[in-house]
Structures are given as C-alpha cells and as structure tokens.
C-alpha cells in the first residue's frame, strides 16, 4: 500500500512537471492544448474510494490551476472527470474483467479498451475545461473543434506514455 502511494506520488509529480514545463508550451497551431496530467486520474487504482477519488481529482486540478493562474478551471474539470470515472468504468467493463487490486492500464486491459476508456474521460475533461475557459457558447463549434482536436492529441500522448511504461 505504502509502496503504491509513493509510486502514485512520483507519477503525480512527473505528470504535473511534464504538463507545466513541456506541454503548456506546446500550442500546436493555437487550437491544440494537450493536458496530459489527467492521465493521473486515469491510472488511479480500481478500489479507490469515492471521496478520495473526488478529492484527488480536485487537488490535481487545483495544483495545475495554482501554477497556471487559472483558479477553478482545471479543478472543476478534473473533478468532473473523477466523478465520471466510476460510471465510465462500469460502462466499459465486465465485472469479471476487473482485478480489484489493479488499476486501469493498457498492458492489462488491452489497447482498444484503454483507448475507449481514456478518450471518454479525456473528452469530458476537455469539454468542460475548454467551455469554462471560453466561458461562452458563442463560438460553440470553434470551442468544440478545439476540444476534439486536443482530446485526440492528449490521448495520443497518454497512449505513448502507457507504451513507454508497460512492463514487459
């Protein structure tokens, strides 16, 4: 248990640092802003209790908010993502597939499953984030386009990250 906490803490630091140092400066054509730190919510263990999941989600977003001077934006979006995570998990997973001790990962659950799971949650996160950011529905399709493109790019980066950390 203690070991996995340390592992997650390291993950947390790495992801936040990557997000702040690398991916925040990566603004592909002004449309695409990948937010790869949400991978932390994706890889939390199955057996995590609801309130802890929500608080971790909120704190993750708040950390990013603190560094990016965007109070509330990332915390509300990441909180929403954490809230939706159990529902998405039950939607995509059969009971017998879940090893309650483990956590969602591409190596165990397979590429297609992980792709569906991460795209669904990342899309919800980006949807709420970008609309809170623009704070208006006037450029609805413009914002939606940004959401879709950024979702794809974030997913690609997270899949690459999964590939790199898969244990052989």
């Amino acid at each position: 248990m203690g070991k996995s906490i340390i592992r997650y803490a390291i993950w947390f630091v790495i992801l936040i640092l990557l997000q702040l140092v690398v991916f925040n400066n990566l603004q592909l054509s002004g449309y695409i802003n990948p937010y790869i730190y949400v991978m932390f919510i994706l890889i939390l263990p199955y057996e995590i209790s609801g309130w802890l999941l929500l608080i971790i989600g909120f704190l993750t977003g708040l950390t990013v908010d603190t560094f990016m001077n965007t109070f509330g934006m990332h915390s509300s979006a990441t909180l929403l993502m954490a809230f939706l995570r159990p529902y998405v998990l039950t939607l995509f997973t059969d009971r017998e597939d879940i090893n309650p001790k483990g956590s969602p990962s591409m190596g165990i659950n397979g590429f297609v499953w992980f792709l569906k799971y991460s795209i669904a949650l990342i899309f919800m996160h980006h949807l709420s984030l970008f609309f809170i950011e623009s704070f208006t529905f006037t450029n609805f399709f413009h914002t939606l386009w940004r959401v879709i493109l950024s979702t794809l790019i974030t997913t690609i980066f997270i899949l690459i990250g999964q590939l790199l950390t898969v244990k052989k």
Partner: protein
Amino acid sequence: MNSLLRFIVKYQFLLLFLALEIFSLWLLSNHTYYQKSKIENVARSVSGYANSKINSAQSYFNLSETNRVLSQENLELRKQVATLSAKTEALYEMMGDTITDSLYLFKPAKVVNNSVNKQYNYLTLNKGSNHGVETEMGVVTNNGIIGIVIGVSPNYSTVISLLNVDLKISAKLKKSNHFGSLFWEGNSYQHITLGDIPQHVPIGIGDTIVTSEFSSIFPENIPIGVISSFSSKGSNFHTIKVKLFKDFKQLYNVWIVTNKQKQEKERLETLKDVG
C-alpha cells in the same frame, strides 16, 4: 435527522462532487478578473487574426476603389506640384542664371504639347514673348537638344522639333571634332541621322555626338546621342544613325537658350558675305 444522515451517506459521492464543484466554481468566479482578462485576450487575438484574414481578402475586392482614391490623390498632389514649381520657376527667374557662362541665357520652360509620330513634329512651350522668348532661340534639355523656336505668342511658343524632317542642325563627333549636319529621316523617334561626315573619318558604334560650336543657336558640347550604326555605300560620306539620349516621348522640363552675342555674330558673317 437520521434520514438526512442516511441521505448524505447514500449520496456522499454525488454530494462531495457537487460541493467540490461548487467550491471550484466559486474559486473561478472569485478570480473573474483573471478569467475576464484571459477571455478578452483570447477573444482579441482570435478576432484580430480573423480580421486580418478578412481584411486581406477584402482588400482584393477594394482594389479598384483604392486605385481610384490613389489616382485622385495623385491628381491633387500633381496640382500642388504644378503650383509650387511655378513659384520656384518665378524665383529662379528673379535670381537670374548663375550656372552657365555669360554667353548663353537659359530660361526654364515646360512642354505643353508635343508629338513624335508625324513627319513634321512641333512642340509648344508655356513661355512666350512675355517671358522674353524670341524666334530662333534654341530649346535644350540636360541631355539633348530639342529644337528651335519658330513662333511666339505672348504666353506660348512653338518649337520645331528635332524630329522634323525640315530641321537641320550642326553637330560634331565628340572624339574627333569632325562636324556634320544632323537631320531626321522621319522613321524612329529615337534615332536621328548625322550626314556629311567624310569617309576617312574613323568612327565607331557608341561614339558620342554633341552640338558643334558653329551653330549660333545652341551652346556647343551638349550631348545629343551615340552612334548606333553607320553605312557608307556609294558616297563620300558616312550615313550615321544616332540613338538619341533623350526620349522625346518623355519631354517635360526644357530650357530655352539664348545666345547673347548671336546678332553680333550674324551681322559680322553677313558683312563678310557681302564683302
């Protein structure tokens, strides 16, 4: 109370979510200053980008209108230039001519009518007898001779152009000082013919032709043009084609030149003839 607790425990997940979500939205609204300025920045850059794109597209459709406005503006400026240059001209005349030697007097004039496409071409200048212009004065520019004044009215004068088959002017080779007569054959407005240069005179393409000192009308050594081709078939003289320096289609500012000692010279020459 009990049921409330049970409700909270039952829906703890949703309630915690809602509580935290409300808290983060409160954070957001508490920092609307950031949000607002951020939104404004985003909006400004997006709209600025879009506007610049739209503008660059629209400017194509507005080209004809832009052209019209510009030509209108050109016209206005041209009017101003005309007014100002008339003033500077008046000042020049007051100052007198300080550049040239005392033998010749130069008066600035402008070409107001010109032709190059006839056999007998004439020019009209905007200076006349009121300005001291008389017939048989020469008209030159800085790189060529233009013609000779043949008629004068109070404010205008008519000039027989160098491009007139009737006009013959004395000219010489700058290199060897051999002189001949310059006339136009009536073909190309950029070329003129130099005749009466004897066969033995060595000439080459590119040699410069200048006015000679024998003319009492033009100062000597005004460049006229360069030899572009020559032939010497069946005569004792070269027939030399001269490419003019001055494009006669572009004439605008010219000088009317007076030889102050012209009468004296001519009187002396007629006396000799009589004698």
